[in-house]
């Protein structure tokens, strides 16, 4: 192996080393693709009206088994101001349908996570939610 090709070999190995550490945690813009879309319908298990991002946990029945999904929203201040949401907006047992981008590109680590753009409440009210900004 010439000195030059050895150098190229190590450069490539080095690049892999760097990208490994970059993606080990949660990298910016790497949670989902704007081309991936999914609709889920399920029963509210828990609603954490918290800063900096509220979290809705729902059970989705699929092929006879139950899958847990987590949906993360914009800050409570924005959800309250723009959509009229509050701590009491969801209660366990509510049926909801959510359309958005599933996190398929890391960060979720064993969880089913959806970045929402449209949510239908149990009373039929529909909220078109501003596009997720990748956190």
């Amino acid at each position, binding site marked *: 192996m010439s000195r030059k090709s050895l150098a190229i070999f190590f450069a490539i190995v080095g690049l892999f080393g760097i990208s490994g550490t*970059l993606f080990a*945690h*949660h*990298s*910016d*813009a*790497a*949670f989902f693709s704007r081309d991936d879309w999914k609709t889920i319908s399920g029963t509210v298990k828990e609603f*954490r009206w*918290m*800063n*900096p*991002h509220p*979290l809705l946990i729902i059970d989705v029945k699929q092929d006879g088994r139950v899958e847990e999904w*987590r949906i*993360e929203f914009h*800050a*409570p*201040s*924005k959800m*309250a*101001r723009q959509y009229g949401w509050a701590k009491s907006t969801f209660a366990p047992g509510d049926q909801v349908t959510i359309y958005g981008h599933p996190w398929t590109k890391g*960060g*979720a*680590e064993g*969880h089913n*996570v959806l970045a929402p753009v449209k949510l239908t409440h149990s009373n039929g009210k529909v909220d078109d939610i501003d596009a997720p*900004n*990748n*956190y």
Partner: protein
Amino acid sequence: MAKRVSGALLALMIMLTLSPALLSQARVKQQAKPSVPPPIPRTADGKPSLTGGWIRKNNRDVPSKMFTAEALPMQPSAAEKCKAIGCGTGERGGPPEQMVDPVIARCAPPGFPRILQNAEPMEIFQIRGRMFMRFEHIAGMREIWTDGRGHPKDVDPTWYGHSIGKWDGDTFVIDTVGLNDYTWLDRAGHPHSDALHVVERIRRLDYNVLRFDLTFEDPKAYTKPFSGQVEFEFRPHIEIREVIECEDRMLAERPEDAFPFYVK
């Protein structure tokens, strides 16, 4: 009977005479509504009023996480810090790895001047001798002295620094020193030192737009002064609420697992 008829006739005639005027007035109102912004409100001393709610305005000329589109003239030490976290190299203009951000990873306040780049709204209050900028993000507050005082001789570094302001014609000029170096200069992740000196020249361009022209001077981190800008849109009726970092960690069993999906 005849009296009643003539009375009705008179009323009809009055209505017919007035209706074109009423109609045209309605038309004028309809036309005037969308295009002409109200005049810039002014305080008792004749200066533009900056009081009210403001939200960051998108600016196509400047990346959203920077104050300028130009590369910053970093000293080697600053360039090294920038390189270590990959400042500005992420897909969205921040570092590629979010956990290097002191706001996300360590629940730190964004500090000044970075707080000017927040997407959350802010509100300006002007009272005698002082101006306040109240930010929704982390319930942050800047206090700007307008009573003619200068900076203290030996100012202790803080997250928002020591600010003094005065009018230059219709431009409000704020001079800020005494900033700690725990914060980033901008959301891209550029560093700064505790020698950072920022001058903001704030103009209300019209009723709806507030423009900040900034000059940064930091001889410990940058080779020369540089400028930047940020613009805000007027939202007179906006209700400022709270955005607090890391509340999620109080609800997580293992705080280190809280980001980004909040493990129980």
